[in-house]
């Protein structure tokens, strides 16, 4: 187990800058998720951590030791690849024992360690099989077993669940989190799926265009997104955003509809701002603003409604079972304390 320090790390392929000075401090035993859209540099950062890509600038330290020029095998890390990268010509046992075999471990040690990992992952019955004969979830477990056997200081996961079907993904998500709670090894996990990030992480690092947009605990990111990008990226369905001005104690959105402003820390009047409200923070209110219903999507646990308010497209997620036909008018109003305001020019959060 170890801390991981990423300090002002930059990466360029030729003249193309991929990472522009990324800094992340990871505590011992933390589960950190790097999340962002494709091409944001999260996988590249992970591969730099593993030593599969060299570091153009800055420093990476594992357990206090700068590893910029340390070859991958001496970094004391283990990685689970997106396509699992199991050796197809080796059995599950041989796959898991490979690193020990290379290190010249005696047969009994290999047996003992592999059995131990196999027991944790429920792979005891599959040790003599070849990867071809395994299902996707089983392969995923073998890939994790291969990492566990190494007994590393840091686990790296590169989008490990993206090749699984939706149901299995939810199950493996819980398994990985449970495994982490059991082994307490520092883990860096890359994904493009914000739900995975929210559910698994101790610390989420949201990346975009080779920069860190915000790093924090999952609920912190959800409650207080630092900028428009994080606000739009975290949460599903995504946050509603409207452009407009602050005028006379309220927000004037599209169609000159007046929306209530949060009570504390309201911005000075006249400012061009973006008004953000999460779908689940709109509620039905007889005193509220009139919204024209366009589409109603019942999911059982809640009802999502696509609606227009003064020309703005909004999504509302309501606990109530709404039986409204398209064209009908609903009265809605936002939870005033849960409204987010962002500066239109910089995209940064303003106010509270």
């Amino acid at each position, binding site marked *: 187990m170890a801390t991981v320090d990423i300090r002002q790390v930059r990466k360029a392929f030729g003249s193309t800058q991929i990472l522009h000075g990324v800094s992340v401090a990871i505590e011992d035993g933390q589960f950190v998720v790097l999340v962002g859209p494709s091409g944001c540099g999260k996988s590249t950062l992970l591969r730099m951590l593993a030593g599969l890509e060299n570091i153009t600038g800055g420093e990476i330290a594992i357990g206090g030791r700068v590893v910029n020029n340390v070859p991958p*095998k001496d970094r004391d890390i283990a990685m689970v690849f997106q396509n699992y990268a199991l050796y197809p010509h080796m059995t599950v046992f041989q796959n898991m024992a490979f690193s020990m075999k290379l290190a010249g471990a005696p047969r009994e040690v290999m047996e003992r360690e592999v059995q131990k990992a196999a027991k944790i992952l429920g792979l005891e019955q599959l040790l003599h*099989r070849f990867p*071809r004969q395994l299902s996707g979830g089983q392969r995923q477990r073998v890939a994790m077993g291969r990492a566990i056997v190494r007994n590393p200081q840091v686990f790296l996961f590169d989008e490990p669940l993206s090749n699984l079907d939706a149901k299995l993904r939810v199950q493996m998500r819980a398994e990985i989190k449970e495994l982490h709670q059991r082994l307490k090894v520092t883990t860096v996990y890359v994904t493009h799926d914000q739900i995975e990030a929210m559910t698994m992480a101790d610390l989420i690092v949201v990346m975009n265009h080779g920069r860190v947009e915000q790093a924090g605990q999952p609920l912190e990111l959800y409650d207080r997104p630092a900028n428009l990008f994080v606000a739009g990226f975290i949460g599903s369905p995504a946050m509603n955003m409207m452009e407009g001005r602050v005028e006379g104690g309220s927000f004037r959105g599209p169609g000159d509809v007046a929306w209530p402003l949060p009570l504390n820390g309201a911005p000075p009047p006249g400012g061009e701002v973006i008004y953000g409200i999460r779908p689940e923070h709109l509620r039905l209110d007889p005193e509220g603003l009139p919204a024209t219903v366009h589409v109603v999507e019942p999911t059982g646990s809640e009802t999502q409604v696509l609606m227009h308010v003064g020309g703005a497209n909004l999504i509302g997620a309501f606990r109530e079972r709404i039986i409204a036909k398209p064209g009908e008018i609903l009265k809605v109003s936002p939870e005033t304390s849960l409204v987010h305001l962002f500066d239109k020019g910089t995209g940064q959060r303003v106010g509270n």
Partner: protein
Amino acid sequence: MSVTAAEGWVRQAKEQSWLSKLFDWKPFLVVMCLLPALGLLMVFLTYPLGLGIWLAFTDTTIGRSGRWVGIENFEFMIEDPIWWNAVFYSVFYTAVATVGKFGLGLWLALLLNNHLPFKSLLRAIILLPWIVPTVLTAVAFWWIYNPQFSVISYIFIELGLRETNIDFINTAWPARWSLIAANVWRGIPFVAISLLAGLQTISPSLYEAALLDGSSAWQRFRFITFPMLLPILAIVMTFSIIFTFTDFQLVYAITRGGPVNSTHLLATLAFQRGIPGGQLGEGAAIAVSMIPFLVFATLFSYFALARRKWQQGEAND
């Protein structure tokens, strides 16, 4: 709803023409589809092979149709030291050339699999020896090995390493080795390009995983590259052995089996006896005698090397 609209109209089956009926008849269709392939196989494969085997059991000479003589040709062949010599050289030639081709070909493939500048140009250059017509290769090597004008001899003498020209093809053993060298030169591209294709099917993430598992470059070759290449290696080797064992052009164009029959392969000996020598029956018998060797080589590489257990499908064992 539209029942009323369709009332009074009954769908009638359209009468099929006799031709379309015929083509709908499965046995006819099967015969029609198989005929071209079967025809080509019969005319260009089965007939020549059958004729060759038939000739091997007759005393046919050029200009006179022969009589059935049973295994007389083979009896004669077994007692013929020249045939034994050709058997020895065919096996030796195939074995040494295959080892040479695969050693150098694999090395070249591994080199080309790296990121090199001008990669595609280099690959095209590698292919050159293979696309040059064999006879042209043979002429070039015949010139290189020429007792008087050999460029190799010239260089050695100019460098002061030798006083006299090298004798490449006028005594038995130097001639045998020289021909093997020419065959290796010609065979490398096929091996290198085929193995390169095989190398490129190996996922780079396997090497990355092995790198993290702490492997050295040699261990990655030994435990990842080689086992994963083995199935392709087996197929390429089978082809290479067959091509080399049945080689004719290089040897015939450079030495014509000489000096004193020392470099005859079975193919060149069969041709020599059958066409210039006129003994078609004997020549055919020598050619037929290659079949057991080829069957053995094919079976060996097929069963020994191809289809590893890990390649087989989902079956639970």
